[in-house]
Each structure stands twice: as C-alpha cells, then as structure tokens.
C-alpha cells in the first residue's frame, strides 16, 4: 500500500506575529489619538474620559497674621524666620503659588500671606494657622494631675515647667504607625536626637518611668517615658495619611521663634492662565503640521526621519493625554501646553540626531530630576511630568521605529 506523504508547508510564524503586532500597534495608536482628541468622550456614553481641568479646584485666600513681638529680641530676624518656615511648609505640601510680606502698623507687626492652590483647603489652612511651637515640659510638683474635678489639668501648659528641650534639640521627628494601648495602629511622632547628644539621654534617664509632656502651642500631650528609655513617642491626633503628613511637615519645617495668630482671612479671586483645551489642541496640530511641512519641503529632511519623528510625537502626546483623561488626573492646561511644546521640540531633535539621543535624554532627565527635587509649585509639576514624558518619548521612538519597519516589510514598500 502506498502511503501518501503529506508535506506540510513551513508556516512563517515570525512574520505572522509581526503582522499581528503591527495591527495591534495600529489599533493602539488610533485608540490613543481618538481618546486624546477633545470632545471624543461625547461619542460614547459607555465611558467618560474628559480631561479634568484643574482650574476648577483652585482657590485663593489672603491671611493676616499678627506677630506676638512682645517677648522678642531681634524681631526682624524672627519675622524673617516665620516667613521662611511658612514658605517651607507650603512648599512641602505642594502649594502652587504663595507670597508673604510683613508690615508694621501702630508698633504691631503683621504678616500678609496669600495662597493660590488646588490643594485641600483644610490641609493648607492647618499649615498656616498653627505656629506649632514644640517644647518638652515636666510636671509641676504642686499640681494634682489625677484630680477628677480637673480633667484638663494634664493638657494645660501652665501646669508644667519648661525644660531646655524644644523642637530645635532634635535632629528629626519621624511620623509612623505604631500599636497603641488598645492594640490598634495609630500615628506616633518619634523624636530623634543626634547619637552624641548626652543631654537628652540624661533627661530620659532622670525621668525614666515618669510622665513628661510635649507642649505644642501651649497644649500639652502627656508622654510616659518607658523604663528602658528606648523611645520617645508622642501620639498624633491624625487618623488619615494626608493629615499625618501635615503633622510631619509641621514638626519638620522648623521651630517658629515667636507665636502668632490669624486675625483676618479674605477670599481672593483666582488668577490663573486659563487656556481653552480645544483651541490648544487646534494650535498644537497647526504647529506640528506647519513644522513638518517646512522640514519636508524647505529643509529637505529625509522622509524616514520625519515619519519616525512625527509618529513618535503623535504617539507620545496622545498616550500622555489619554492617560490624563482615563486616570482623571486634574491637569493645569497651561502646563500641558508647555509640556507639549517642549516635547515636540525634543522628539524632533532625538529622532533626527541618533548620535545625540542618549546625551539629550540624559541631560534633560537630569534637569527634570533636579527640578523635581529642588523646584516648587508649577516648576515641580512641570518637571515631574516632563521626566515621565522623556521616558515615554524614548519608548515611543522605539515602538514607532519597529512599527514603521514592520509595516514597510508587510506592505513590501
């Protein structure tokens, strides 16, 4: 019997997968472009992904603080210190705009503080309104802290003697969650000194097993020093991470040299660079088309480079805007405009000058990182986004190159 041999034709799986991948990348690019374009969220009711404009979240307020200069010696130096600490607090929480100036009226010093921010009002105000003057105090011998008729005695500053220790005596106050007496996790502030600081060590030894207090703006939180003097932990009245962060900022932004009180507050109109997102998209599109026409017709830039640069630009920008839309990240439109303009310029350079791609990427990533760490307000927001966009644009370049090569091979161009 003759057995017919079946000859299986070798299937080009690699080519098939490459083709499939090209189709997938095409769909991805199309989807990203459609999502990123303005008003496309109205096409379907099944998904909502409109760009969340941050301008609605902004609020602005002016605060007048009256400085208690009665006990101060070098008032001007201390006022400058107050201004610095307030700026440090606002900067650490990420307030976009703030200004502080001091003035004198009838021998009383006032500080005028203006903020404009999208951050939560309650959080910002707790950083402004509390001087947060921290001192370590010990119990007065003649006060009965166990008296049931005077339950607030342990919390009043007047019932305590001051010590030489204030916030300035500590290297750092670290906020963390520890188990409390009810065996539940709650926030505690751990006071950390320098290892060579013997004064604090002696103080703990002297008061071992006793109750001392941490006075914050004259309100005292009693603290029991453990017998082994291992830890000096103060309970914090914050249950949420955001508020614990506020307390950490208050502890670690410096000790106010003089007390102050807020004597007036006034709502101010918001002053931000409003940009119409739709008009901005039109503008960017016109700009990119004009530039690429110039590069093609007048500059005679090779089509391959233009195609790579153009596709990478479209892919990066649309991926970024699609991400902002889908994640509903509140966005400053004017910062988005600056980001897109910087990105268009950067991608053109790194696509056209392959030998400089790594150098430009390193330099810009370094600058962005420095700005994230040292910048404040809008600079930090812009630099943080730019750092992500630098990575995204390099990734887009590789995807675009792979895609163009694959499509060319598939279509035999």
């Amino acid at each position, binding site marked *: 019997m003759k057995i017919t041999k079946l000859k299986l034709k070798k299937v080009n799986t690699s080519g098939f997968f490459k083709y499939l991948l090209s189709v997938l990348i095409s769909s991805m690019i199309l989807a990203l472009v459609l999502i990123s374009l303005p008003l496309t969220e109205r096409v379907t009711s099944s998904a909502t992904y409109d760009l969340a404009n941050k301008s609605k979240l902004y609020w602005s307020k002016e605060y007048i603080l009256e400085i208690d200069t009665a006990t101060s010696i070098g008032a001007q130096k201390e006022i400058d210190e107050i201004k610095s600490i307030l700026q440090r607090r606002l900067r650490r929480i990420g307030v976009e705009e703030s200004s502080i100036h001091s003035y004198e009226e009838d021998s009383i010093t006032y500080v005028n503080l203006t903020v404009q921010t999208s951050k939560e009002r309650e959080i910002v105000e707790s950083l402004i309104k509390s001087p947060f003057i921290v001192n370590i105090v010990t119990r007065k011998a003649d006060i009965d802290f166990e008296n049931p008729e005077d339950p607030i005695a342990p919390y009043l500053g007047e019932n305590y003697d001051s010590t030489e220790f204030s916030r300035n005596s500590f290297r750092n106050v670290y906020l963390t969650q520890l188990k409390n007496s009810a065996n539940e996790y709650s926030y505690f502030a751990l006071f950390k000194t320098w290892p060579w600081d013997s004064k604090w060590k002696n103080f703990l030894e002297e008061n071992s097993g006793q109750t001392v207090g941490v006075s914050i703006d004259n309100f005292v939180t009693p603290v029991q020093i453990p017998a082994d003097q291992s830890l000096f932990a103060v309970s914090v009245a914050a249950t949420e991470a955001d508020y614990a962060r506020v307390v950490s900022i208050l502890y670690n932004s410096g000790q106010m040299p003089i007390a102050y009180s807020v004597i007036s507050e006034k709502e101010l109109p918001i002053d931000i660079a409003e940009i119409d997102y739709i008009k901005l998209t039109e503008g960017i599109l016109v700009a990119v088309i*004009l*530039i690429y026409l110039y590069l093609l017709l007048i500059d005679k830039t090779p089509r391959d480079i233009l195609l790579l640069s153009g596709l990478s630009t479209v892919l990066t920008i649309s991926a970024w805007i699609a991400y902002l839309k889908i994640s509903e990240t509140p966005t400053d439109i*004017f910062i988005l405009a600056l980001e897109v303009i910087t990105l268009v310029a950067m991608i053109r*350079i790194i696509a056209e*000058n392959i030998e400089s791609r790594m*150098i430009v990427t390193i330099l810009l990533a370094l600058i962005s990182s*420095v700005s994230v760490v040292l*910048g404040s307000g809008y600079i930090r927001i812009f630099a943080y986004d730019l750092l992500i966009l630098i990575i995204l644009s390099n990734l887009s370049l590789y995807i675009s190159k792979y895609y163009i090569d694959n499509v060319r091979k598939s279509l035999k161009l």
Partner: protein
Amino acid sequence: MNLFENITKSWSKYEINTELFFLLSIFLISILTIYLLTKERKLLIISIISFLIGIFSNFVGIYLVNLLFKIEITEIFKMIPLLTSILILSNLGILIGFYISKRHAKGFNISSIRKEYYSDTIKQTIFLLLLGSSTLLFLSVQTEAVISISILSTILSIWSSYGISKYFLK
C-alpha cells in the same frame, strides 16, 4: 501675585536661597555633566557662555515684558529659566552627541563640528520660531509671554554661542 513686587517687597531668606540654589544647581549639574561626557574644555566654555546668555536674556525679557506690555509677572514666569535651560541643553546635546560620535574618527578636527553645529542651530531656530508662533494665538497672554521669552532667549543664546564658538572651536 506679582513676582517682581514679591521679590522687592519681602522674599524671605528661604525663598531667595532656594531659588538661587535651584538655578545654580541646574547650571552646575548641566555643566558638570557636559564636561564629564566630553572632557573637552572648549565645549565646556561654550556651554557656560550659552547658559549665562540664556539666563541674562530671561531677566531682560521678563523686565521688558513687564515694562512694555504691562503684563503682570506671576509665579508662572519662574518656569522661564527651566524652559530655556531645557531648550539650550537640547541644542548643546546635539553638538556634544556629534562631537562624541566623531572624536575618535580618523583625521577628526574639532573645527569640523562647527559646520554641523551651524546647520543644527538654523534648524532649531526655525523650528522653535514656527512652534512658538503657531501656538501663540491659542494661549493666554501670560503663557504666550513665558513661551516667547523662553524661545527668544534660547535663540539669542544658541546664536551667541555659535558666534563665540568661532574663537574656541579651532
């Protein structure tokens, strides 16, 4: 919130120090990175000049915008030095990249990179002018001013560096 008014009225020591430290860090880190990548003093000098002209143009630009167009100088204007640094670094990056790729080539002469630098600078200038002018109509006055000052400072800086490079790249 007028930035000029804030600075003259009462910037706290903290604000002055942090802003100066920020600008100085950008400048020093960029310059140091350029030197570490190239180990070439001539390129280092061009980079330093480029940055200094850029920052100087920024201040003149902000002052003129405030004086001539009565545009209020707000916190957004603090972004100008950063934007200018990014654009200047993109230009310097092309020069450095080209230098690094060619420096070990046979018969390489540092003056040869000037020609490439010239063509890249023309391209970047036209590109930035087109990009800036096409978006200007669609932005707010303050954002327009920020972009215009950054782009014009960059153009002034890169052409000045190109002009000065005649004396160094030989």
